[in-house]
């Protein structure tokens, strides 16, 4: 059975309750809020398409050595393709705490489901060819469980390409002020609280 994006997001939230998570624009961020609520460790990229992994890379480089754990980017296939050069930058710098969870539905879902060019692209091979420490594909719930365990432990940078369907859940628009999102996130970084009980 095809994984759903909302289901995968719920699993990501449970797997990384106390690590910085950068959420990509569109339905991914909105569905995360719908399934997990507003988490202090989540930074929402409201509209900077193509830049989600770049922000996470900067955080990973900046936090490496000062804070244990991971920096997670939850990215879409269309957005990753817009900023694909970041694969080479991360592969070159090799932050061992960076994890990219790519939710690949094969389309620009937020704008109506137009197909992306991801279907014909071996993104796992690209990441590995760029020097990433690990990359793998996920199609089933069992593979997702194993991949999330791996992503919490193995030395990065790691890419997990999760194939998901195009089913969406109904959500409200995310009308948050980005300046407040950034400040909330910075405040959490300075004094991290963790785990579902904190929200």
């Amino acid at each position, binding site marked *: 059975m095809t994984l759903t994006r909302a289901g995968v997001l719920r699993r990501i939230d449970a797997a990384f309750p106390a690590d910085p998570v*950068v959420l990509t624009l569109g339905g991914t961020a909105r569905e995360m809020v719908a399934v997990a609520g507003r988490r202090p460790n989540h*930074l929402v*990229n*409201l*509209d*900077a398409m*193509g*830049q*989600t*992994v*770049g*922000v*996470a*890379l*900067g*955080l*990973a*480089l*900046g*936090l490496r050595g*000062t804070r244990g754990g991971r920096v997670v980017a939850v990215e879409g296939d269309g957005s990753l393709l817009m*900023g694909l*050069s*970041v694969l*080479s*930058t991360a592969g*070159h*710098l090799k932050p061992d705490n960076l994890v990219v969870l790519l939710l690949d539905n094969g389309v620009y879902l937020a704008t109506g489901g137009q197909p992306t060019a991801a279907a014909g692209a071996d993104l796992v091979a690209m990441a590995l060819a760029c020097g990433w420490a690990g990359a793998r594909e996920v199609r089933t719930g069992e593979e997702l469980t194993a991949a999330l365990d791996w992503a919490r432990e193995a030395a990065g940078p790691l890419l997990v390409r999760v194939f998901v369907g195009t089913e969406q859940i109904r959500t409200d628009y995310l009308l948050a002020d*980005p*300046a407040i*999102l*950034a*400040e909330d*996130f*910075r405040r959490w*970084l*300075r004094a991290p609280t963790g785990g579902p009980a904190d929200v």
Partner: protein
Amino acid sequence: MADEAERLAAIHTARSRAVIEGIESIDPDFVLHLASSTLGAVLAHFLAGPGARAGRTVFAMPREEEGVAVTCGLELAGRRPVMVFQDNGVGNLLTVLLTLPQAYHVPLYGVVARRGGLGEYNSMIHTVSERVEAILDAAGVRWFQLDARTPVEAWAPEIKRAWTYSRTTHRPVFTLVNLMGG
């Protein structure tokens, strides 16, 4: 002719030194660069000279836009990054500037080498470079210019002030530096 070439080379050397001094006064722990022949001396300092030192990460951004995203992450993590690139890349970074640091009130600083003015040797780069002030103004991105009108001794402190100003005002700020003749 030879005199003019020597005069321009001396200007380039003195201004490059001032830019290095200015960036060093910020004490950046990350320097993100996109190469430019004009910036050769400045980049050499950070890549292979005294500016390449333990505790500092110096790396190329493949695209200015990506550099802004990575710099934003570094700033959010509490680091001291500086971007160094050439002004014909400004067109590549407007969307990301306006959707990340400007919108999220994240300070971000860059030193941008001017091209296309007096002393330019390339016959077409001015098509972008001459519009950079207008592009940044239209985008509402704050910038300061250092060129022949500012004594070179004042450059380094001005660069540090511009970095501070990006913190004071919680947004991207650039210093446009003319390392050529103008």
